[in-house]
């Protein structure tokens, strides 16, 4: 099938099921067929056309996938081969080159270094400072979209080839670099528009 795609949601930790159900709606809206499943092992990652790294705790995810060295390497290799990836919040941190915590500073995490950005973790503060707001994301269309920021990171540096797709209060909160998109807010908690954009952009590899 020309249009059929394999989508995986990285099933280490975080809001995995929310991303699965959101992706199901997005597939319908994008009129694409294919399989959506939770992926956890390197052999699952080999035949994916798109991977979603959900929100959660980035330290937990990075420490668990670093143990499974093969998973870490598979994801990196598949991204370089053109697999589309979407990273949400913790997923954005994992995809980045480096991250600093607002309070602690340098952390002991491992990064996929697939996306040429640096991020600041917990940039808005603790949970009490988490918030919802409305953002302009021209790529998604006219009108503002609701954005939920939960102990969210921000992008502090971007490399050449990285496009900024959304800003909040002059801070970069969503970026795109070829086959990679990352957001510091949680589209999966609101509706499926961001996931639809992601699904539409996936090309069969």
């Amino acid at each position: 099938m020309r249009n059929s795609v394999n989508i995986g949601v990285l099933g280490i930790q975080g809001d995995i099921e929310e991303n699965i159900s959101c992706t199901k709606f997005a597939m319908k809206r994008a009129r694409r067929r294919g399989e959506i499943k939770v992926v956890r092992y390197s052999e699952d990652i080999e035949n994916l056309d798109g991977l979603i790294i959900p929100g959660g705790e980035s330290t937990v995810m990075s420490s668990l996938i670093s143990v499974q060295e093969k998973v870490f390497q598979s994801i990196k290799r598949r991204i370089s081969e053109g697999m589309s990836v979407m990273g949400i919040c913790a997923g954005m941190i994992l995809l980045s080159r480096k991250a600093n915590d607002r309070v602690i500073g340098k952390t002991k995490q491992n990064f996929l270094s697939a996306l040429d950005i640096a991020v600041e973790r917990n940039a808005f503060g603790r949970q009490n400072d988490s918030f919802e707001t409305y953002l302009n994301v021209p790529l998604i269309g006219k009108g503002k979209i609701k954005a939920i920021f939960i102990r969210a990171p921000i992008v502090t540096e971007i490399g050449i080839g990285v496009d900024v797709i959304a800003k909040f209060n002059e801070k970069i909160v969503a970026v795109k670099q070829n086959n990679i998109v990352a957001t510091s807010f949680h589209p999966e908690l609101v509706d499926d528009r961001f996931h639809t954009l992601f699904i539409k952009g996936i090309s069969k590899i």
Partner: protein
Amino acid sequence: MVISVAQQETRGTKSEEIEKLTITRGTTLVKRGFARMQKHGVVMDITNAEQARIAEDAGAVAVMVLDKLPYDVRKIGGVARTASVNVIREIIDNVTIPIMAKCRIGHVSEAQLLQGIGVDMIDESEVLTPADEQRHIWKWDFTTPFVNGAKNLGEALRRIEEGCAMIRTKGEPGTGNVAEAVSHIKLVNYEIRKIRSLHGDKQELINIAREMRASFSLVEEISRLGRLPVVNFAAGGISTPADAAFLMNLGCDGVFVGSGIFKANDAAQRARAIVLATTHFDNPEIVAEAQSMIDENKSMLGLDTKNLDLRMQERGPI
């Protein structure tokens, strides 16, 4: 979208304008969303910064600060209160993962002070001595999300209506025995299945709402979703990787481990093993590997839940 959000409350939320952008803190989506980010993770009970660092290195999704671990609360007796402010502050400065802390059931001022010093989630917990035998805290007044324990669906629904953003089983804390947590999650799941089968039968649903002393709209929402509108974690008595995997297999969204880790003689190793087993709960090979990282001789001895002097799950208003 299948994710449901109850009507947004205005109490407990704060709006302000930043350069013409309105941001709102403490909304239902923000609070329940925080709880969703903890899914498939392990929240570990700790009493000091040293233990917090061990927990973070082992891959804990968050830490829960207490003055005494549940096992010690049981042994020492007396009144168990919220942890020292200075200890919580020190922990906040030392780890990057979210920090939760317990307050006494109904103790509004303890909850306010925890919110004030910046903990990420408050556990209104039966492990501490209840401060109000009539009422729980009205949690809609807070921007900080709350987690509450529940033995059955009725309790879970009443806590959700009071504004809690996350449910956990009560289990029997400090015993190292999962039996009670298992029966709580099974009962909640059974009651949800029953309500789901009644979807569309408003009269029957209204009877159930009256029986459970919960609102009709919430009962109807459960019948539509076939699950709680918030996450439901396992807690109370988990002490080995296999315990964690078992409860995940029963449909829990994540795991709280209390005395099980720091009352064992191999805390760091055990913490790591429980994290592994929670992530890979449906893969028996990895659970076996995780279980082999710990030594049963080093597990906390544990208590039979039948002959306890203090049954924590039965404390406080229901």
